[in-house]
């Protein structure tokens, strides 16, 4: 800069000394240069958008701009040559040479700076992607562990197949993403990043290995536990069977034993006589010595000994027919409190015992809809009677209806004088009887009684409503359930935070590169004119290719970065609108920058 100013002053001095006219011409030329410099600023009201647009078309327009910028510089040089003498020419040449050298240096440094910036940002982004890739690997490995556990367990045979394909898909996607990253990045940066990534991968692998080892031990112990339990179970079964067979053989050989097929648990009806049977085989000639006794376990109450009834409760009685092996305990009028365990005991040494469980139940009768039923006139009366807890189906079920004369109930049957009456009875463990009366009339109102033979009767009151005006309409109750609000997950929050960060980063990079390229663009015109004047034509093709390569490189870097950012964002929050996070001031800039990439994204 200093050298240039000194030379300018010398020129002015010479011109002033020789001619005033030349000085005036020089002044006017300087003014023209200033105007030319101001023109771009006035044209670009939003400077960044213009620079961005210039960046993206390609190298051709830029070259054209440079060619257009050359003529003023050439004119200036020629005019100086015409007006100057030999000494002036020499000084001009020297100044041109020095200017060229300085400018070349500046260009080289700028290019180096740009490369450094690109490498730095690229390296950071690539490392970030590596981290995400590693996290994916960890997640897949975490998924794999449960699969192994499930596969190890005996019950997981069917489930093991399902997760397999999912795991494979995950790993495939991971590989694809890593491949893309590698392909799109320079060699040096990729080398450094891959090295750091390798270290991280090793660390994660070691941790995963540890986890696998820790997880394996419980699974093996579980297997051992399950096998141990199964062994125990099988051994118990075997030993039980063995013992049972031995006992039977011993019993048959040695002395009396219980015939359990004829000595089973008893379910008795409340109030009806119950018989508990105990068949003792091989009692032999020892009948006079051995005694068969009945003992009630509730209070260890001795009931009978042989044919002698010890208890003074007259409800209990011993029944035994000579020449038979059955020793029965008769219980008259059994009550609920008589339920429990009764022991049939043979007075051998040691004594033998057989336990019989007595369950005293009371049949119950239920009518669906009791105690009151309301039926519209003209419709069908459907009464359902259910008899439960009955050891045997009832012999009969009577339906009684008393209307005007309660003291004289009428038995309803299919041959009733009313007509339109049918009775359907399903007998089983739970007996059900249906009474169907068609075309209900007000005279059909009254008490209906279901009277089974072995249970208490149950009645229901039927009200037949008269006329349509009296009908009761039942609406289905509509429950208005409030929908729960979905809580926002922290992952979405973090992803949403990422979007403005990406946008800011993109804008920052764009502005920075625009400034750099603007500076580079401002320099070339003088360089071009100087080179042509000095005759250095081989140098001019060297400059253009460098600029073109840099621009291509930067464009590819930015495209790649933006693409990655959007991909990640879409994976995280597909439903949300990305523009929601953009500020209104920067929307135009973002839209302008994004326009060239839409095709790539699609």
């Amino acid at each position, binding site marked *: 800069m200093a050298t240039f100013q000194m030379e300018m002053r010398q020129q002015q001095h010479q011109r002033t000394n020789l001619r005033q006219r030349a000085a005036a011409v020089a002044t006017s030329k300087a003014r023209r240069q200033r105007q030319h410099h101001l023109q771009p600023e006035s044209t670009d009201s939003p400077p960044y958008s213009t620079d961005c647009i210039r960046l993206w078309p390609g190298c051709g327009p830029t070259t054209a701009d440079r060619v257009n910028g050359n003529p003023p510089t050439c004119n200036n040089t020629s005019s100086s040559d015409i007006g100057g003498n030999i000494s002036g020419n020499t000084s001009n040449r020297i100044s041109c040479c020095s200017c060229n050298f*300085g400018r070349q240096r500046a260009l080289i440094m700028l290019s180096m700076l740009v490369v450094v910036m690109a490498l*730095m940002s690229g390296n950071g982004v690539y490392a970030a992607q590596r981290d995400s890739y590693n996290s994916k690997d960890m997640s897949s490995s975490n998924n794999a562990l449960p699969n192994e556990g499930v596969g190890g367990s005996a019950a997981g045979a069917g489930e093991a197949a399902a997760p397999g394909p999912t795991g494979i898909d995950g790993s495939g996607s991971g590989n694809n993403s890593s491949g893309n990253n590698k392909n799109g990045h320079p060699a040096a940066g990729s080398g450094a990043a891959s090295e750091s990534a390798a270290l991280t991968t090793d660390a994660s692998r070691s941790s995963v290995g540890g986890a696998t080892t820790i997880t394996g031990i419980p699974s093996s112990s579980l297997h051992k536990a399950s096998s141990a339990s199964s062994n125990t179970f099988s051994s118990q079964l075997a030993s039980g069977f063995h013992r049972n067979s031995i006992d039977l053989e011993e019993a048959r050989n040695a002395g009396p034993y219980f015939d359990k097929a004829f000595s089973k648990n008893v379910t008795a009806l409340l109030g009806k006589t119950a018989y508990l049977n105990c068949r003792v085989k091989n009692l032999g000639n020892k009948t006079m010595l051995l005694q068969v006794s009945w*003992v009630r376990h509730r*209070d*260890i109450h*001795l009931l009978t000994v042989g044919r002698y009834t*010890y208890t003074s409760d007259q409800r209990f009685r011993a029944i035994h027919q000579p020449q038979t092996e059955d020793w029965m305990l008769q219980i008259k009028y059994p009550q609920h409190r008589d339920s429990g365990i009764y022991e049939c005991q043979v007075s051998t040494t040691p004594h033998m015992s057989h336990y019989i469980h007595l369950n005293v139940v009371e049949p119950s009768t239920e009518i669906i809809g009791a105690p009151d039923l309301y039926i519209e006139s003209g419709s069908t009366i459907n009464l359902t009677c259910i008899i439960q807890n009955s050891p045997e189906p009832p012999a009969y079920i009577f339906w009684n209806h008393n209307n005007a004369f309660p003291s004289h109930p009428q038995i309803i049957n299919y041959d009733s004088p009313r007509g339109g009456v049918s009775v359907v009875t399903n007998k089983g463990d739970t007996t059900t009887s249906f009474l169907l009366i068609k075309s209900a009339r007000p005279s059909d109102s009254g008490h209906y009684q279901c009277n089974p033979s072995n249970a208490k009767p149950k009645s229901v009151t039927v009200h037949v409503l008269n006329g349509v005006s009296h009908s009761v309409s039942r609406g289905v109750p509509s429950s208005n359930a409030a929908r729960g609000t979905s809580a926002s997950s922290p992952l979405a929050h*973090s992803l949403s935070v990422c979007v403005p960060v990406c946008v*800011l980063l993109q804008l920052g990079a764009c502005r920075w590169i625009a400034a750099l390229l603007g500076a580079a663009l401002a320099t070339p015109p003088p360089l071009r004119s100087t080179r042509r004047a000095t005759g250095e034509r081989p140098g001019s093709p060297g400059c253009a290719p460098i600029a073109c390569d840099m621009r291509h490189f930067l464009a590819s870097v930015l495209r790649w970065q933006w693409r990655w950012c959007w991909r990640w964002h879409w994976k995280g929050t597909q439903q949300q609108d990305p523009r929601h996070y953009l500020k209104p001031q920067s929307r135009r800039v973002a839209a302008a920058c994004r326009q060239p990439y839409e095709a790539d994204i699609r």
Partner: protein
Amino acid sequence: SRFTNRRIMFLIYMTNLVTHVMMDEPRFAQPIPNVTVAVGRDANLPCVVEHLGGYKVAWIHIDRQMILTIHRHVISRIPRYSITYTDNTWLLHVNQAHQDDRGYYMCQVNTNPMISQVGYLQVVVPPNILDIESTPSSVAVRENQNINMTCRADGFPAPKIIWRREDGEEIAVEKKKKVLVYDADVLPLTKVSRNEMGAYLCIATNGVPPSVSKRIILDVEFSPMIWVPNQLVGAPSGTDVTIDCHTEAHPKAIIYWVYNSVMVLPSKKYKTDYTENSYRAHMKLTIRNLQYGDFGNYRCISKNSLGETEGSIRVYEIPLPSTPSKQVTHTTVESRENNIIPSSRNDTTKSLQTDVGYAMKNDLYPGSASSSSSGGSSSAASSSSSMQTSALPGGVAGNSLSSMGSKGSLAIGKSTFYTERPPNEYAASSVAGLLLHRALLFGSGIYLTLL
């Protein structure tokens, strides 16, 4: 009024009388006592019932859920049970009780509802020492070693075991704490010394006579030791002289005398005496009619299966004095020499023992040294592994941070130095560039932080 009162009183009286007569129901006059019987003995359980009337009494063993008797009939086929009835008392006899007979017994009367009483029969078992699970009757142990003498016994209730010495001496247990009686199944003796040799009694008691005991003889074995009271003996020729040694050894040792590498056997010239008390022994050698050839070094030797030791006694000649003054002088010298020399010998022996102890310590030292060195190496390995583990993520983070910082500084320097522009434009553009650059760095930093 009078007649009304009388009628009321009469009615009350008659009501009470009728009630009293009507209430003639069976009832238990007294509860069944809890009976304790030793196994094999007989036991009786009484059930006292008043106003039995036509009802029947039954005995039931609840634990076995077994019917024993009804009225006078024995239902159970176990012949050890029997029933007797005298004066409202139904007595259940259990002969030669077994442990299985232990439990609750119910006396039941067949009224409606049934009435019953319950009593407990406890069958106890005298203590019995289990030889298989106990220390044998004779046991040997090396001196300074540890030994646990065990004594197990069964019985009901579980018996209590105590230890004591047969000779009434105190027992040293738990770091040499002296006790006369020790209560435990296991008697722990640590660093047994020869004084603890003897007979020990293990006594088991559980309150049921008879108590039982077991005699265990403890032998403490050690190598022989010799103590020489006089190591230098002088006597004139022609007289008799007696030298002696005291020795301790167990098992019993072989003792003999050696003179000039020849074993001394009893003969006219030599007479040997040997008296022993437990593990101690006193050996004497009498040399008759001392001659010139008898003066010299005599050795007493004691040898047993664990080792051997010897003592040395020097016999020298004392010339007969011709004048009384000379005799007095010699006697004084002799006593002085006797007093001095034995002490020095004892010191030498003690120093030798000290050397032995030191050697033992040296033997122990290498082991401890090796264990400490192995511990150090293992700790070093663990620390190195932990360092590696911690270094990986930290190193990666540090590397990335440092690289970012360095690159930033380089960029700033280059941009500042090589930009060629007018002063005012230069300043403005450089400031803007710096801000953008820092914004970029900030964005990258956030990127990394989030990821």
